[in-house]
């Protein structure tokens, strides 16, 4: 895959990521999984690595995907593509516009985009759930419902709900328990 293709793909993702790195997840899924860069399971592994290592999730995902596609130059191209829309748009706004976020038209657009973006993130969460806990469509032979995975999910949810500790702990715990459970 050429570096320019990688740059362009992540430029598009950066351009449509509104409201934080999580909003990049559905766009990344569309590009990477539907586009055939990585498998569904691999995508979730990337998400786990990106969530439990330093740095914005969107940048971590871009670096990882770029590295898979074309080694270190690939990760540079992907990350550069991902931040380029920010650089261009923010510099223009900083230079030419005042009170940008208070403008009524900006408020109207955001009023429509924000709930839709959260709907997209929910769809990505559904994809992750269906690949790991529920339907197992990407792990043929295990059936649509897997008791150990479901139980582990329920226990993690209960503990997280009660304690709200750092996400990294749950990812590490999930890995350790997984070794003995599956």
């Amino acid at each position: 895959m050429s570096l320019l293709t990688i740059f362009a793909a992540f430029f598009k993702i950066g351009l449509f990521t509104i409201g934080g790195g999580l909003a990049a997840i559905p766009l990344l899924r569309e590009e990477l999984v539907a586009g055939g860069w990585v498998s569904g399971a691999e995508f979730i592994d990337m998400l786990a690595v990106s969530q439990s290592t330093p740095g914005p999730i969107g940048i971590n995902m871009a670096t990882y995907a770029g590295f898979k596609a074309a080694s270190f130059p690939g990760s540079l191209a992907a990350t550069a593509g991902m931040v380029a829309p920010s650089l261009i748009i923010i510099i223009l706004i900083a230079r030419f516009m005042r009170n940008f976020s208070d403008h009524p038209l900006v408020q109207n657009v955001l009023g429509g985009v924000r709930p839709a973006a959260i709907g997209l993130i929910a769809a990505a969460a559904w994809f992750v759930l269906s690949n790991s806990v529920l339907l197992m469509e990407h792990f043929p032979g295990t059936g649509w419902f897997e008791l150990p995975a479901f139980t582990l999910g329920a226990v993690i949810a209960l503990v997280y709900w009660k304690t709200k500790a750092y996400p990294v702990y749950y990812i590490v715990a999930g890995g350790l328990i997984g070794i003995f459970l599956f």
Partner: protein
Amino acid sequence: MLRELLNLFIIFFKIGLFSIGGGYVMLPMLRREMVEDRDWLSDAELIDYYAIAQATPGIIAINTATFVGYKRRGVWGALASTAGMVGPSLIIITIIAIFFARFQDEVVVQKALRGIRVAVAVLLSFTVASLIKKAVHGLQGVVLFIGAFIGVALLRLSPIPVLLTGAFIGLAAGALARRKHVDPENNGRGDQK
């Protein structure tokens, strides 16, 4: 000049290094570095930049870094800050990706990954729930949220047209609300009781 560019790079490298699991720790760190320790920005400026970063395309942390860097030292400042912010990701993720490719086919690693996927699914579900509570309000919000979810999860639409539809509906609803608001005043009919 060069010294301050290096400073911007180092500050944002540090912030990138300590923001684990999303950009939520960024604002407190940025406030300490820029407002308390250095007097480079006022609280009001920082909040303005953060608000604009949330309202524009791109990752919030990157947008904020670009904005602060530009205000301090122009385009070079913006580049230095952004490079600092992505620096830790580039280094750490590349190292992990190299090792991951080597170990991912081991049975133990496969089992651990299955457990990790379950944890990721649960964490992401909780995040979605808190996002819904924070930003899905009113009829328009609920309809757009459900519509976007069904469109992408079940009908397999691509995310970008869904976001554009959301923007269009937001604009149309805003225009409609303005017309309703202005009409009685202009015509002097006095629709209000």
